[in-house]
C-alpha cells in the first residue's frame, strides 16, 4: 500500500502530538504528582508509536517504544519523576522532532541515530536512582601491545602508506556486538555510519555488502584512516548501544603484510592509487549525499492546513452560488436583458467578496501554533542561564494567515531570547532591586483592525540608553552631533540598526551581532513594523504589527508613462494634486511646500526608468504621498486609475530582489502589473 498519501496527515498529527507532549511535560514538571498528566503523555506516546509503526518509520517507533517503557515505570511508581528524567524525555521529544522535520524535507526519517538516547532511557530503567552518575561501562579500550599482522590487499596497504605519510592515522577496528543485539545489520550500519563521520573506511571484513545482508557472526573488522585520535573514535563508538567490545589498533606499514608483494613500479602505482584514494573509494559517500539532496528536492511534502468544517461548508455554499450566477449570466446573454445583467453582476460582486473573505478565513490559523513552542524554549533557557523565568502568554487564539505563522516564529524566538538573556537580571540582582525573584516575560497577541499585534514584554532592566548611544557612536551608526539631537526613544530604536549588539559578552544565546536588524528585516518583509518601548529598570517591550494577510491587499493602480503600477494602500497617506510650478529644487532634490511642511518629491518615472514618460508635466500633477514610519514623500505619477484589490504574486527566484519592486499582480485583462515597493525609496 502506498503510504505517501497519508504522509501529510502523519506529519500534521505527529507535530500536534509532539507539541502536546511538550506542553504536558512542562506542566508535569511543575506538578509531578499529577498522574493524569503522566497518563496523557503515555497515551500520546503510544499513539505516536502506532502511527510511526504503520508508516514504517522505525526510528521513531523504536524511540517512542523505549519512552513508553520509562513512562510506564513512572506511572506504576517504580520510578520517580526527577529533573533528569524530564530532561531526557525532552531530549527524546527533540529527537522525534528532528525525525519529523527530516521526514518533512526528504520523505524519509533519515539515518539519525537515537542509540545514545535509548541508552539513557535504558539506564533510567535499570538504575532509576543513580541516573546522574552513570558510567560508560559498555566498552573498555583494549590496548593490545602485541604485534598484529593483518592481511590486506595491495591497494589497502598503499592507501595506508599514503595516509600515514600524510599524517593521518590508520586503524584497525574490531567491533563485537552484544549477543542479545537484535537487527545486527542495522546496528552495524549505525556503527559504520557514525564511523564515516570521523574516518574513511577503506576495508571491511566481511565486506560491507555481507554486513548489510547480516552475513556475519557477532564481530566485524574495519580498516579506516582518520585525522582523529583513537580516543575520539573510541568515544564515538562507545555512545552506540548494543556493542560488546571495540578494539582499536593503530596500523602502520610494519604490521601490515600485504598478500602480494608490492610491485617494483611502486611509484607509478602509488601515484595512481593516490588519485583513486581521493575519488572512487570516497564516492560512495558523495553518492549518498547527492541522493539525499535529490530526494529533498523532489520529496518535499506539501504544506497543509487543517480547516474548521464550518468554514469549508461556507466556502462550498459560496462556490455553488457562484455557479448559479454563472448560469444566470449565460442566460441573460441571450435575452439581452440589461436589467437582469446588472443584477447578476452585482450579485457576482457580492459573492466574490464573500468568497474572498471565506478563503482568507480558511487560511487563518491561531497563533497558538507558534506560541506553543515557547514554554519549552523558555524553560531550557532559564535553566541554561540560571535565571528563574515565568512566561505568560495571552491571545494565543488570535488568528493570522498561515504564511505569517510560518515566518513569525524565528523573529519571536529572537526577541524572547533577547529579553531573557539581556533584559532579565540575574536572580541576585533582582532581589537587590526589590523585584520579584522570578523574571516575567509576557507574550501577547491581539487583532487590531486590519492587523495583528504581537508584544514581547519583560520586566528586566530595560535598555541602557547611554550604552546604546556609546555603542552607536562606536560603530559609526550615528555621528556625535546626531547623538546629541536624538531623544531617548529615538536612541532606543537604534538597536535595530545592522550589526548592533549591546551584549557585553557574546553568549550562546545571543549577542553575536546578527541581532535585531534581522528581526526587523524579517518583519518588514512580511509588511509589518516593529517598535520598542523601554523604561530603565522596569523592562522593555517589543511591539510587532503585522498585516492580517499577505496574499491579497488593497492597492492604488497608477500610470507612469504607459505602464501601470500598483502602490499598496498601506503605504499611502493621501493623494493630492499640486501645481508643477510649486516644485522647487533644493540641492538637486525636488521639494514642495505642502501644508506648510516640506515634502520631498520623487518622480516614479525616474526611479523606475520608465521610457517615454512625460517628464515635463502639465500645470497640475498627481502626487501620491507615501509614508514609512514618520517619514513622508510625494510620488509624482502620470495618472491615477483607482483603488483595487490585488493578489500578490512573487516575481520568482530570479527577479526577487529587484529594487523598488515588491512583487507583481495580474490585472483583469491578464497582463502583469508590478507592485511598487515605496519603502525602498526612503
Amino acid at each position, binding site marked *: 500500500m502506498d503510504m505517501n498519501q497519508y504522509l501529510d496527515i502523519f506529519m500534521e498529527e505527529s507535530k500536534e502530538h509532539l507539541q502536546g507532549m511538550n506542553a504536558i511535560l512542562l506542566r508535569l514538571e511543575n506538578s509531578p504528582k499529577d498522574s493524569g498528566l503522566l497518563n496523557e503523555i503515555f497515551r500520546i506516546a503510544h499513539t505516536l508509536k502506532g502511527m510511526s509503526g504503520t508508516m514504517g518509520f522505525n526510528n521513531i517507533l523504536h524511540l517512542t517504544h523505549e519512552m513508553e517503557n520509562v513512562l510506564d515505570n513512572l506511572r506504576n511508581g517504580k520510578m520517580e519523576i526527577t529533573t533528569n528524567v524530564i530532561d531526557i524525555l525532552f531530549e527524546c521529544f527533540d529527537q522525534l522532532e528532528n525525525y519529523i522535520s527530516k521526514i518533512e524535507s526528504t520523505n524519509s526519517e533519515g539515518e539519525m541515530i537515537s542509540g545514545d538516547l535509548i541508552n539513557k532511557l535504558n539506564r533510567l530503567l535499570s538504575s532509576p536512582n543513580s541516573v546522574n552518575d552513570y558510567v560508560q561501562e559498555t566498552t573498555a579500550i583494549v590496548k593490545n601491545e602485541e604485534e598484529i599482522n593483518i592481511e590486506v590487499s595491495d591497494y589497502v596497504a598503499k592507501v595506508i602508506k599514503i595516509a600515514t605519510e600524510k599524517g593521518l592515522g590508520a586503524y584497525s577496528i574490531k567491533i563485537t556486538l552484544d549477543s542479545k543485539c537484535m537487527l545486527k545489520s542495522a546496528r552495524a550500519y549505525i556503527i559504520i555510519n557514525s564511523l564515516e563521520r570521523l574516518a574513511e573506511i577503506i576495508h571491511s571484513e566481511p565486506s560491507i555488502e555481507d554486513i548489510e545482508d547480516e552475513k556475519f557472526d557477532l564481530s566485524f573488522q574495519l580498516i579506516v584512516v582518520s585525522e582523529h585520535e583513537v580516543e575520539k573514535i573510541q568515544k564515538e563508538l562507545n555512545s552506540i548501544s548494543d556493542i560488546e567490545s571495540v578494539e582499536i589498533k593503530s596500523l602502520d606499514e610494519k604490521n601490515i603484510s600485504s598478500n602480494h608483494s608490492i610491485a617494483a613500479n611502486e611509484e607509478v602505482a602509488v601515484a595512481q592509487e593516490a588519485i583513486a584514494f581521493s575519488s572512487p573509494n570516497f564516492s560512495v559517500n558523495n553518492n549518498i549525499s547527492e541522493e539525499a539532496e535529490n530526494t529533498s528536492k523532489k520529496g518535499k511534502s506539501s504544506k497543509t492546513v487543517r480547516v474548521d468544517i464550518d468554514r469549508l461548508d461556507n466556502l462550498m455554499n459560496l462556490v455553488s452560488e457562484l455557479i448559479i450566477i454563472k448560469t444566470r449570466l449565460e442566460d441573460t446573454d441571450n435575452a439581452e436583458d440589461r436589467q437582469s445583467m446588472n443584477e447578476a453582476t452585482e450579485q457576482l460582486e457580492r459573492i466574490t467578496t464573500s468568497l474572498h473573505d471565506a478563503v482568507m478565513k480558511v487560511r487563518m490559523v491561531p497563533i497558538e501554533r507558534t506560541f506553543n513552542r515557547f514554554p519549552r524554549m523558555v524553560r531550557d533557557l532559564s535553566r541554561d542561564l540560571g535565571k528563574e523565568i515565568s512566561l505568560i502568554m495571552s491571545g494565543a487564539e488570535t488568528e493570522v494567515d498561515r504564511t505569517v505563522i510560518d515566518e513569525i516564529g524565528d523573529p519571536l524566538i529572537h526577541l524572547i531570547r533577547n529579553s531573557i538573556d539581556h533584559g532579565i537580571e540575574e536572580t541576585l540582582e533582582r532581589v537587590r532591586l526589590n523585584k520579584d525573584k522570578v523574571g516575567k516575560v509576557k507574550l501577547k497577541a491581539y487583532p487590531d483592525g486590519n492587523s495583528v499585534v504581537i508584544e514581547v514584554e519583560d520586566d528586566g532592566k530595560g535598555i541602557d540608553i547611554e550604552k546604546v548611544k556609546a555603542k552607536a557612536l562606536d560603530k559609526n551608526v550615528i555621528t556625535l552631533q546626531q547623538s546629541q539631537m536624538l531623544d531617548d526613544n529615538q536612541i532606543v530604536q537604534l538597536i535595530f540598526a545592522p550589526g548592533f549588539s549591546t551584549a557585553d559578552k557574546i553568549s550562546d544565546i545571543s549577542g553575536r551581532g546578527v541581532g535585531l536588524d534581522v528581526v526587523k528585516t524579517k518583519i518588514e518583509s512580511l509588511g509589518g513594523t516593529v517598535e520598542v518601548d523601554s523604561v530603565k529598570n522596569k523592562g522593555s517591550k517589543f511591539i510587532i504589527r503585522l498585516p492580517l494577510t499577505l496574499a491579497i491587499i488593497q492597492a492604488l493602480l497608477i500610470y507612469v508613462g504607459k505602464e501601470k503600477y500598483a502602490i499598496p494602500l498601506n503605504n499611502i497617506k493621501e493623494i493630492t494634486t499640486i501645481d508643477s510650478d510649486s516644485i522647487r529644487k533644493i540641492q538637486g532634490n525636488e521639494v514642495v511646500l505642502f501644508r506648510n511642511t516640506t515634502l520631498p518629491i520623487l518622480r516614479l518615472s525616474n526611479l523606475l526608468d520608465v521610457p517615454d514618460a512625460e517628464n515635463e508635466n502639465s500645470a497640475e500633477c498627481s502626487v501620491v504621498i507615501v509614508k514609512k514610519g514618520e517619514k513622508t514623500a510625494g510620488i509624482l505619477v502620470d495618472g491615477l486609475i483607482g483603488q483595487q484589490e490585488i493578489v500578490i504574486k512573487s516575481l*520568482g527566484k*530570479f527577479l526577487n530582489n529587484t529594487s523598488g519592486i515588491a512583487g507583481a499582480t495580474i490585472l483583469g485583462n491578464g497582463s*502583469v502589473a508590478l507592485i511598487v515597493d515605496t519603502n525602498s525609496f526612503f
Partner: protein
Amino acid sequence: MSNNNGTTNQYVVFNLENEYYGVNINYVETIEKVSAITRVPKAPYYVKGVINLRGEVVPVIDIRKRFNLPDSDITDNTRIIILSVEEMIMGIIVDSSSEVITISKDLIENTSNLINSSEDDYINGIGKIENRMIILLDVHKIFDLKAS
C-alpha cells in the same frame, strides 16, 4: 560533457538570427506565443520583462540581448520557450521554434577546441545533423547570471 539528466538526448530546436540552437527537452516546460510582456525596471539588461503564464508571473529573457545579437521585432513566429531549471521557471524569446530532434551523443562535438572559454561560454556542444549545425545551450549558464 553534457548536462543531460539521464539519457534523454532530445533537443527542442529554435531559430535565432539564422542559426539553430537546441535546449535539452528535459528543461522545457512549454512553448508559448508571445503575450503582453511587462517591463521590470532595474532588472538585468537581458530581462525583457515578466509575463502572465496561466496565473504565474514568469520572467522572460531576451536571448538576443544575452548573445549580443541585433534586436528584432516580434512576429507571428516569435515564441517564448518556458524553461524550468532548478525550480526556477523562466522564458526565453526566440525567433521561431517548431521541432524536436534527437541527437545522439556521438554527433555532438565538444566546443572547447572551437571557442576560447570566455565568460560568455554558454554553449554545451554542437550537434551535427545532416549538414545542419545545432548549437546546444547550457541553460544553467544562461540563467546563472544574477550577479552581473
